[in-house]
């Protein structure tokens, strides 16, 4: 091993293929799920995570040794990896599950990610991932992964500054009351919020290059993890339809309507 004061950064970015956010969601007649035969794209928060990793490299240059993206999903999820590679990741890992398999849950995903991290010869110093996926809105995987690894975590990041020399990161988080700044020691799990960055367009030359970048295909069994859901979906329904408003002729009618709706005046 060469003597080196700085350990180079290895970044892992988990990404998920989800129903595109612009698609109108339709609940299946059996009320067990939604129509998935629609346009899919990368979970927007994950796109932000990939962009942030690429920006780190642009800033830190050679100090970022690798950016790996990983996804769990059916064969089509490989497209999502290609998109991430076109934005600037170096290589991908596709944990492939059958098209008909149920969607993995956060704990299963976190365990699979732990197995991936443990397999990496050079180790992983930083995991950047979306704070939630827009399909199930669970928002748990990042925290579970940090817990399983016993690593530091910084969720809802809106700013990320990494210092590879001191192996520390400064993270600004969006919390209810405002912004919270954390100093964390690597290895670290960061989950991204919307304002962290605006992902770039993948340019054509980069899309072409991405086609030649390696994607390793493995199965959950290879990792020794079981992705079978442990939760049971009882019912999926649409939110109640908005009922159109009505017009009233005068204030008296308005007050009558308000009373009808059970709204009573506040006693002063």
């Amino acid at each position, binding site marked *: 091993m060469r003597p080196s004061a700085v350990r180079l950064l290895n970044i892992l970015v988990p990404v998920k293929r989800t129903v*595109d*956010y*612009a*698609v109108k969601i339709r609940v299946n007649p059996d009320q067990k799920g939604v129509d998935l035969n629609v*346009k899919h*794209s*990368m979970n927007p928060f994950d796109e932000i995570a990939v962009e942030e990793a690429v920006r780190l490299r642009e800033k830190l240059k050679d100090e970022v040794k690798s950016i790996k993206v990983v996804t769990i999903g059916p064969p089509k999820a490989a497209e999502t990896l290609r*998109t991430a590679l*076109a934005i600037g990741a170096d290589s991908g890992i596709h944990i492939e599950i059958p098209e008909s398999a149920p969607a993995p849950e956060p704990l299963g995903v976190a365990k699979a990610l732990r197995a991936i991290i443990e397999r990496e010869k050079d180790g992983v110093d930083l995991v950047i991932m979306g704070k939630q996926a827009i399909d199930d809105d669970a928002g748990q995987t990042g925290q579970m992964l940090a817990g399983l690894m016993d690593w530091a975590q910084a969720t809802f990041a809106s700013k990320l500054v990494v210092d590879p020399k001191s192996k520390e990161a400064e993270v600004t988080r969006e919390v209810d009351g405002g912004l919270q700044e954390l100093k964390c020691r690597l290895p670290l799990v960061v989950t991204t919020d919307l304002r962290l960055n605006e992902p*770039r*367009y*993948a*340019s*054509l*030359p980069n*899309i*072409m290059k991405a086609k030649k970048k390696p994607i390793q295909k493995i199965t959950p069994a290879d990792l020794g993890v079981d992705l079978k859901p442990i939760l049971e979906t009882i019912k999926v329904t649409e939110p109640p339809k908005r009922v159109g408003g009505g017009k009233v002729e005068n204030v008296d009618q308005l007050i009558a309507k308000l009373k009808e709706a059970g709204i009573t005046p506040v006693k002063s």
Partner: protein
Amino acid sequence: MFLSRQLARRAYLRAPRRWSHSPAAALSGLNAVTEEDLAHFSKILPSSAIISTLSPSATPSSELEPFNNDWMNKYHGKSTTVLKPRTTQEVSEIVKWCNQRRIGIVPQGGNTGLVGGSVPVRDELILSLANMSKIRSFDDVSGILVADAGCILQSLSDFLVPHNHIVPLDLGAKGRQHFNNSCQIGGNVSTNAGGLRLLRYGSLHGTVLGLEVVLPDGTILDQLTSLRKDNTGYDLKQLFIGAEGTLGVVTGVSILAAPAPQASNNVMLALPKFENVLPLFKETKRQLSEILSAFEFMDRTVYDLAVKHGQGRALDPADVEGAECFVLVETSGGKREHDEEKLNSLLESLMEADEPLINTGVLATSPAQFSALWAIREGLTEAVSKEGKAYKYDISVPLHKFKEVVDKTREQLRQKGLLHDDAVRHVVGYGHVGDGNLHLNVVAAAYTPEIEAALEPFVYELVASYKGSISAEHGIGVMKTHALQYSKSPTSIEWMKRIKALFDPNGIMNPGKVLP
């Protein structure tokens, strides 16, 4: 009154004598609407369908403003009366009366035209089709939709969504919703509106299968067939498509709706030089064939203006470097995987060619990016108007002349000493390559007689020298009647006039429009 007189005088001062003409001349034999006429109309129509400043209704003139002025507030009429019939029969009776009484009629749809064709020149009667808004029938096997002329384009689109069809016409696909939300199908037909789907679905001359028209004497011409094929003599309906209401009032339309595409993609390409646009168009057409649905060109100057004024999200600066122009390609088809495969192999072959036609480009990977790329193209009009006062020419010229037209116009302005910050700031070109339609825009600090004199008739003569059209999709209206001669030969104009006289011997239909 004062304002319009001033406008008239200014127009007179600016117009070189040889085209001096007055649209008002067309109104010389026509009468104004009187209270007696109104009394007659109230026998035909309910009082709610009559808006008039004359008694007995005596509506304040402010309520007539939306009808008397166009949406850009460029053309101003002084009509006293707006009628809003609900049925073809009512239209027929109104027109018949006006013909007997020699009252000029301006048929009006959504009033979204760009050439002043839908507002009165003087005080003609405004016949609004807005209350004729029923969908008469739709056959989801043939895709044939029959609707009243006053149906709003967007409502027809909305109606067709559950039937998995689309109207083969779209004026403001992603940005200019204003047009779609107010323009009416009858107006679209009467002005032969073009729009963004023309490359794919063709012009209304092909997709309109039949029309119901009230002729200037009140006769109802029912050609509302729903047949794809009908080779039985003269195809009269074609005369009313693009006639801008000068031959009759379109009251019903039968139109062929297209199956709704299941998947759309787009890509913005940066080209090193204009000369590459045509080979690129050829290659794109060859490889994408039936899924190609738009091929839009914009030069570097107008792209930069769009970025400067925040229209859509720009490409990364590194990608834009060295690009002379840009092309937006859209595909739409029936199966996503099929379309993506075709588009990807096109892009691959473009990028890997020995002498690539393109520098680089971006491919939309999500619907949000798809809209963002369209927003740049759609936002050009707005960007131009934010930059200064725009002289807009909507012309058809051979594809390979697009750049030449822009360059020659810029050179003309340079020679006249008008190309500087206080006069003309930019001369830009963009448009529908697929249709040979160029939007030539001259962005100036202010509208001045000098700039106008440098541009007209220069631009029209230039267009005529390429045997182009001085109005590719906006029509003639009242704005370009004087320039008709640059696109139509004297023989053509003579026969157009004869056709007009044949249908409308009293000249009551949209007087002062289209014909010089």
